[in-house]
């Protein structure tokens, strides 16, 4: 795999995820073929590719969300730090506490703003009011939405705008103090201004977190990511530093895609 070797040679910082010969089937449908990838600490890795190529399928393995789908079969290895995630008997709840997720469509719970953010900490046993208050306001500030909701902590989160809801969901994910943040097309349902806010936020957050983001927006990948992975029909075609993928791709298909010749 020359591409993944290139990526690891370029950067010697620690791998958060090490993916080797990873395959996934939905029943008989072979959706991911032999994926190899190193995801580096405190970086933003963008997953790009035409719709249906397996970006969501891939990212959902990093916090074992595919456990929820019956009939999924996995092969190969994904190591989170040193822990094997594939077909292993790990504490999924603990994994998901460390590897948070933000979804394509903002999905706040039908509860108050406060209870949305406090949901994760409460799940993991935080009961102390002062501590919860601190976690809630800290997460809302980190997700750059505190000012907009500080006077409506007790009203329903469903009353917020789409962009606010998505930042609320980011805050909700941050409240369990994860190490990694997975985002599956977090801005595809949002207007340009909200998108801008979330991109800015992602770039700030990478100081503290490792971020993996799926996007169908090439500009977005170019603007915010350090590494880019290009998927096509279940194959990882090319993976490397973002500048290289966009300025000097090795594979003809990558070039065709980023120059907008298909997808």
């Amino acid at each position, binding site marked *: 795999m020359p591409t993944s070797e290139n990526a690891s040679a370029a950067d010697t910082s620690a791998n958060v995820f090490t993916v080797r010969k990873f395959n996934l089937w939905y029943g008989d449908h072979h959706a991911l073929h032999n994926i190899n990838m190193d995801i580096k600490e405190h970086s933003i890795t963008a997953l790009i590719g035409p719709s249906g190529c397996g970006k969501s399928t891939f990212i959902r393995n990093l*916090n074992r*969300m595919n456990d*929820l789908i*019956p009939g999924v079969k996995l092969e190969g290895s994904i190591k989170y730090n040193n822990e094997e995630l594939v077909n292993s008997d790990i504490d*999924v*709840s*603990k*994994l*998901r*506490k460390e590897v*948070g*997720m933000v*979804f394509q*469509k903002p*999905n*706040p*719970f*039908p509860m108050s703003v406060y209870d949305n953010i406090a*949901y*994760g900490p409460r*799940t*993991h046993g935080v009961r102390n009011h002062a501590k919860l208050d601190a976690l809630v306001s800290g997460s809302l500030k980190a997700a750059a939405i505190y000012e907009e909701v500080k006077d409506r902590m007790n*009203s*329903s989160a469903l*009353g917020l705008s789409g962009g606010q809801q998505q930042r609320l*969901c980011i805050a*909700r*994910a941050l409240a*369990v103090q994860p190490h990694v943040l997975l985002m599956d097309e977090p801005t595809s349902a949002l207007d340009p201004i909200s998108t801008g806010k979330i991109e800015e936020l992602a770039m700030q957050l990478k100081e503290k977190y490792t971020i993996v983001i799926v996007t169908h927006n090439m500009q977005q990948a170019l603007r915010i990511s350090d590494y880019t992975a290009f998927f096509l029909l279940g194959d990882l075609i090319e993976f490397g530093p973002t500048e290289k993928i966009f300025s000097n791709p090795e594979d003809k298909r990558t070039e065709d895609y980023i120059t907008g010749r298909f997808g």
Partner: protein
Amino acid sequence: MSISSTKRKIYKTTMLTLSNVCMAITVALVFFLVIYIFVKSIPYFTWELVSTSPSYLNDTIGVLPDIMNTIYIIFAALLMVLPMGVGTAIYLNEYSNRPRVEKVIEYCIETLAGIPSIIYGLVGMLVFCQFMGLQTSLLAGALTLMIMNLPTIIRTTQESLKTVPQSYREGAFGLGAAKWRVIRTVVLPSCIDGIVTGCILAVGRMMGESAALLFTAGFAHNLNGFFDAMNSAGATLTVALYVYAKEQGQFEVAFVIAAILMFMSLAINITASVLARRIQRRKEA
């Protein structure tokens, strides 16, 4: 052209008239029934009748025990059918991933819903009163009502579980919540309206049930506390209505009971629509 349009016009007017007539008949029937019951019952409606037990010594009749028995039996049956029905629906929707087993269970539930209530009464008598040794009692009646209403609760709960967006579940799982916590804190609160609807439907059916209770709960008119009542035979309002009218020829009492039942079902309907409106408002907020 003109002939066919005339024809169509005649056809349209005829259909319109017919459907208006049908509607008028329906409305007239409802009004007739309600007014008839009120006219028949008002002369006999006394505070004594609705607030005392019958007494052979004084030769007076009172329907308070029957009112209390009705409330007790509905309360007891709901207390049993809710956890069973909601639990079954949760299992079918959230836990089971064996479609074939689900199909079989769902088929059984459908069948259960279609069985005439008198058969429930017969089987309830054999199983609860005789085999389980509960005798003829409100408890045996409540158990029978529980089984009869299980399909309603399961189905309405399942329907509303299906309307809870998958994204809520994913959001909670994504934060590391375990399955039961997701169900308890996110899924169930979002389908509370469906469960309430199911309960109201069930209460209405329980209140109107007589055939099954004739076999299982009996005919006594003793005023008891809840636990004593559960252990002894007792007539609910519908059963008492039958007994007073058919066996004792006391049609005044029967009509008073009919009026009480109508009040109760009106109250249930109003509660249902108030609740529905409140839930709707909360959802929009």
